[in-house]
């Protein structure tokens, strides 16, 4: 059901780089968003209310967007002379939905590494359940470093219109995160036939074997909907860093982690299935895939 009034939004920040705010500002249907939502407060923009005025007398509102990692330690985060809980709690109590945008708000992300005991996501500390809160029923996670603008805007629209938003065990909307970043990558054929990209900066080859690509293990539809409506990491020749997963950022991101010289298997594919198929694929030398994609001589 489409409500007949605008949904109200308050955007606040934990420990952050502002990347999700800037990603969101790239949303290409912003007028459509603005027709349904009223941004009461956003820390980077000139909005009608100040945070102080909203905190003074918190009233019920629809969406609390949180960007950045959560912490109770005033040493790690203070805004307007207040600790993070002093800002978060009064607002969280009045919000219909709490949407965590970005991997920091969802799982702790990169900034969690400074003190994993005290810095976490809203309901997760990396993969462990229980982050800043033990439980809360109205939280949706939209991880990503940063989150894609469409993930943020469209999830909010679906929630507003009371459409069914199925969530996975990490509280991520399934319509986005059931896909893998690998789906739609232009290098899929090289992946099928196990043709490694010898070095970065070429159109040919797959980055799974030597360059650490986490596309087959990362839940995200980047290569389906594309970034900035036009490209993606793997389309620009860079490995997927797994930025939507609870363990982002892993160590040694530009190297493939191997076990007895074999890469980890893609998500949900058994070792037996993967290595059998890989062995067969590798035993063939597909001439077309060994050549340049665009043959400049012929």
């Amino acid at each position: 059901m489409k409500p007949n009034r605008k949904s109200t939004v308050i955007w606040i920040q934990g420990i952050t780089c502002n990347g999700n705010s800037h990603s969101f500002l790239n949303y290409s249907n912003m007028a459509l968003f603005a027709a349904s939502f009223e941004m009461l407060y956003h820390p980077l923009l000139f909005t009608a209310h100040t945070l102080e005025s909203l905190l003074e007398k918190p009233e019920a509102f629809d969406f609390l967007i949180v960007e950045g990692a959560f912490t109770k330690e005033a040493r790690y985060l203070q805004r307007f002379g207040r600790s993070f809980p002093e800002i978060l709690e009064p607002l969280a109590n009045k919000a219909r939905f709490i949407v965590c945008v970005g991997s920091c708000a969802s799982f702790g992300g990169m900034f969690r590494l400074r003190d994993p005991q005290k810095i976490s996501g809203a309901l997760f500390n990396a993969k462990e359940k229980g982050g800043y809160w033990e439980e809360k029923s109205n939280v949706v996670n939209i991880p990503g470093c940063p989150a894609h603008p469409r993930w943020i805007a469209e999830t909010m629209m679906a929630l507003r219109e009371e459409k069914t938003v199925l969530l996975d065990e990490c509280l991520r909307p399934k319509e986005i995160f059931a896909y893998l970043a690998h789906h739609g990558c232009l290098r899929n054929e090289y992946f099928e036939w196990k043709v490694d990209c010898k070095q970065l900066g070429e159109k040919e080859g797959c980055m799974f074997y030597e360059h650490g690509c986490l596309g087959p293990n990362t839940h995200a539809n980047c290569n389906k909907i594309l970034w900035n409506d036009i490209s993606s990491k793997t389309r620009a020749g860079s490995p997927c860093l797994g930025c939507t997963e609870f363990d982002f950022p892993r160590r040694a991101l530009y190297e493939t982690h191997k076990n007895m010289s074999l890469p980890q298997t893609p998500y949900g594919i058994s070792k037996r299935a993967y290595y059998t198929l890989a062995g067969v694929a590798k035993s063939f030398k597909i001439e077309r895939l060994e050549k340049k994609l665009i043959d400049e001589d012929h």
Partner: protein
Amino acid sequence: MKITKEIIERIEGEAALEVEWEDEKIAFAKLKFFNYRGIEEILRKRPLYDALAFTPRVCGICSHSHALACVRAIEACFEHAQEAVSLSQKARDIREIALNAEKIHNHIKWYFFSVLPELEKIDNPSYRGEAFKKPRWFLAQHAITETLKMGAIFSGQWPHGSFVAPGGVTCAPVSLDVLNARGILEKVIAFCEETLFGFSLEEFTGFDSAVQVMASPSALSWGIDTMIRHEFDRLGRSHDRFLALGDSFLYEGALKSAKTTVLPADIKYVSESLAHTFFENPTEGYTYSKTAMYKKSFFEVGPMARMMVAKEGLIRDFHRRFKDAALTRVTARVVECAHLLVQTKRLLEDLDIHEVSLIPPKRNVHELSAEGVGVVEAPRGSLIHTINVRHGVIEHYDIITPTVWNLGNGERDNLSVVQKALVGLDSLTKTDFIVKSFDVCSVCTTQ
């Protein structure tokens, strides 16, 4: 003596400003940043190339600049270990195109999302903002989105794209991709001509007098007019010393200038200090922002500095009339935006996609032990990354951001850039705008 405390908001975060007043005028001020994330610490003992993924996340608005400073520092490490790194012209050009997209977007975003609303508010205290409301805001938002889309053809994604690697860039666009980028850039140029400059790009970049700019109604001429009405043509002057350590199409080499005299600069004279920080003294310190100096003096960095060392005609004229007042500082960003559009158009037209994208260093990174420095002219000025690596593992990572140059705190007898610009002011509204005239980024300032 009276002391007041203010919060400066909407500066990519916020900062606290403590002001000491004497005879109703600012005698001294301290700008305090509280949100330190510890990126330099997080990087310690990590594999070197992880820095390529981590450092863009210093800042959501200048992630490409950090990626570039990082890759340059890594390349310098290879060079110090006797392994020359050479880049193809194509790789250099693509790096510049992606960086320019970030700068162009930054300047448009800052002017329309920060400067104009702040000026509207000064002009009319009942103003409540225009974000997600006024047509002008949506037009600017669209121009920003298109600018970054153009850049993402090469960088894959903005923010936080990772498109650089030691020895070049990772993308390998086809010629049609480049044509697409040119088409998108034209849309951004059209927006800037119509709404921001009020003139064609060609006319505007040929100007050498402030009077010419005012001849057409535009967002820029309205801003200039409003700044003059509120005395920002005289307020906000700082040391009138400028520094641009990174390279640019606007000038050759690293340069500094005192007023209008331009001289070569050398990064070896840069020093960083922890004075007044919580790092140096957890009880007496009051900020997480470090300070950076050149030969023990404070220098301003950023678009105004770049325009001044490049002897850009129009900004030189503003400087002749208004010195380094807030008005000149703000206008310099818009003027730089115009030059960036021209340069990016040229780069796209001349880009030779048949060259190689990347020539990777031969030496195994796990055997690399060296120190290297990478400098980039980021949207807000000179950005410096320094890496010390041992056997491919980061021992020490140091970042000096542009905003540290402009917004760190000095001493009473050696005022920092922002302090100098504030001393003598008599109103908090004006103080707020003068601080913002530096295009403050609170996340970069403290990392």
